[in-house]
C-alpha cells in the first residue's frame, strides 16, 4: 500500500501504477455527478446519434473536464454568500452502485481516469477500468465536513435548477482530496474480495445455527 499525490488530468501511466489499497490525494478540477447526471449523460451524449443543440456547450465543457479526469458521486450541502459565490459546506460521497448501469459507458465515452464514490461498483465498471485505464477511488462515506475542506473553489455549476442542488454538476477545484483505491486497472476489487469472504462466513453462520 503506497501513498500518491496525483493532479488531474491524470495520465494513463499514473493510473495503471495504482493498486487496490493505495491512498491517493487528488488535486485539480473535477465535476460532481450522480443519479440524474448519469441518466442525462447517457441519454443526451452517449446513446444518441447527435447531441441536442442546446446541450452542446455543456457537452464540450464536460468533455474537457472529464477527459483524463474524474467524476465525483456526491450531492453536496452548499451555501451562497452575498456576492453570489458558492461554497461547499459538506460534501461526502454517495453510494456508487446506483450508477453501475451507466458508468462503464461514461468512463469509455469521456476517456476518464477515475470515479470517486463509496461502496464500490460492479463488474461492468471494473472491466471499463481495466480497458480504459481508470480506477475507483473510495472516499470516506459520511466524512462530509472533512472533504468539504478539500474543496477550495466552486468553479461553476450546471443544471442546478433542473436537477436540484444535490444532483447538479458542480465543477470544483480540490486540493489533496483523500481517497483509497478499491478497484484498479489490474482487475482487482476490494469489494469483490470482501463480499466473497462475508458470503462464506454467512453460509457458515446459518448452517451452524
Amino acid at each position, binding site marked *: 500500500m503506497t501513498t500518491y499525490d496525483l493532479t488531474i488530468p491524470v495520465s494513463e501511466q499514473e493510473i495503471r501504477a495504482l493498486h487496490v489499497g493505495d491512498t491517493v490525494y487528488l488535486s485539480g478540477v473535477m465535476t460532481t455527478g450522480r443519479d440524474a447526471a448519469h441518466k442525462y449523460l447517457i441519454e443526451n451524449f452517449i446513446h444518441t446519434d447527435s447531441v441536442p443543440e442546446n446541450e452542446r456547450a455543456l457537452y464540450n465543457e464536460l468533455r474537457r473536464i472529464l477527459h483524463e479526469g474524474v467524476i465525483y458521486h456526491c*450531492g453536496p450541502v452548499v451555501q451562497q454568500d452575498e456576492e453570489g459565490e458558492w461554497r461547499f459546506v459538506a460534501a461526502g460521497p*454517495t453510494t456508487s452502485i446506483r450508477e453501475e448501469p451507466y458508468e462503464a459507458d461514461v468512463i469509455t465515452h469521456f476517456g476518464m481516469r477515475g470515479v470517486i464514490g*463509496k461502496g*464500490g461498483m460492479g463488474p461492468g465498471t471494473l472491466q471499463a477500468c481495466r480497458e480504459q485505464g481508470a480506477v475507483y477511488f*473510495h472516499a470516506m*462515506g459520511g*466524512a462530509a465536513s472533512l472533504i468539504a475542506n478539500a474543496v477550495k473553489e466552486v468553479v461553476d455549476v450546471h443544471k442546478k435548477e433542473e436537477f*436540484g442542488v444535490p444532483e447538479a454538476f458542480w465543477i470544483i477545484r480540490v486540493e489533496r482530496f483523500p481517497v483509497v483505491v478499491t478497484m484498479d486497472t489490474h482487475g482487482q476489487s*476490494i469489494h469483490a474480495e470482501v463480499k466473497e469472504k462475508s458470503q462464506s462466513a454467512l453460509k457458515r453462520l446459518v448452517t451452524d445455527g
Partner: protein
Amino acid sequence: MSDLTKSFVELVRRAATDLPADVETALREAQTREENGSAAAGALETILENVALARANSTPICQDTGTPIFYVYHPQGMSTRELRTQIEAGVAEATARAYLRPNAVDSLTGHNSGNNLGVGYPTLHFEEWDEDYLQVNLLLKGGGSENVGVQYKLPHPPLKAGRDLEGVRRVVLDAVNDAQGKGCAPGVLGIAIGSDRGYGYIHAKEQLFRPLDDVNPTPELARLEERLLHDCNELSIGPMGFGGQTTIFGVKIGAYHRLPACYFVSIAYNCWACRRWTMTVQNGKVEYR
C-alpha cells in the same frame, strides 16, 4: 401554545452536526479493534476526525442529511396541527442555514422543493402520551443506509428461516451481508419483529433511539441482540466495506403483535452517523439530549 420553531431549528442543527456521545464512543472502541495501518483503521480515523470538525464548525456530519423523521409524543390537548406547522417552519429554516441539504424531490417531476418540505415530507409521527410534557425525537436517516433496509416475511426458504427467533437471526445476517459497505458501515440495526408492513419499519426506526449500551428488557430479545452483534461482525465486512472487525456496533430489536398469516422482520439499517436527538419541553423549558 408557544412558538417552538426556533427550538426545532436547534434540534435539527444538533442532529445534523453533533454526533451523539454513545455513537462516538462506540466508533472509538471500534477503532481500537482494527489493526494499525489497515484500511479499516484509516476509515475510522477519518470518520472521527470528521465528527470533531462537524461539531466544532456546526456543519453537517454527512452531506446526506437524510429524511428528517420526527416522532412526536405530546400531552393531551396539544394541537398536532400547530406542531406540524412549527416543525415544518423549523426544517425550512434549518435548510436555509445549510444544516440540512434540500432533499425533498417530487417523485413525478424530479423537482427538488429546495426547502425540505413536500408531500408527506418531512416524516412526522404523532402520539399522545400520559406524560405532561412534549418530547420530540428526531432521526436524520441518510439515503445510502435507507436503501439497504429490507423487510423479510417468514418463513424464508432460501435461508431455511422459520417463524422463530432463529429465523429472525438468519434473515438479519442475510440483510447485513447484502448491504456490504453500501450503507456506510459500521452500522446500527433497528429491527421490528411482527406488526404490518408499514408499521414494521416505523417501529424498526423507533428502536434506533435506544441508547447503544441499554439492555433489552425482554431476555430472549436481549440474547438475540447480543448474538446478532457477534454474528454480524463475523461477516468481517468492516468499516466502509473495506474488511475489518466492526461491521455493526448496535442491534436493537422490538417485538410487536402480528396477524396469524404474517410474520415480518423489518430491518432499518443506520449508517455509522446515527444522527438522533431528543428535545423535551416542559413548562416552557426546552432541553436536548
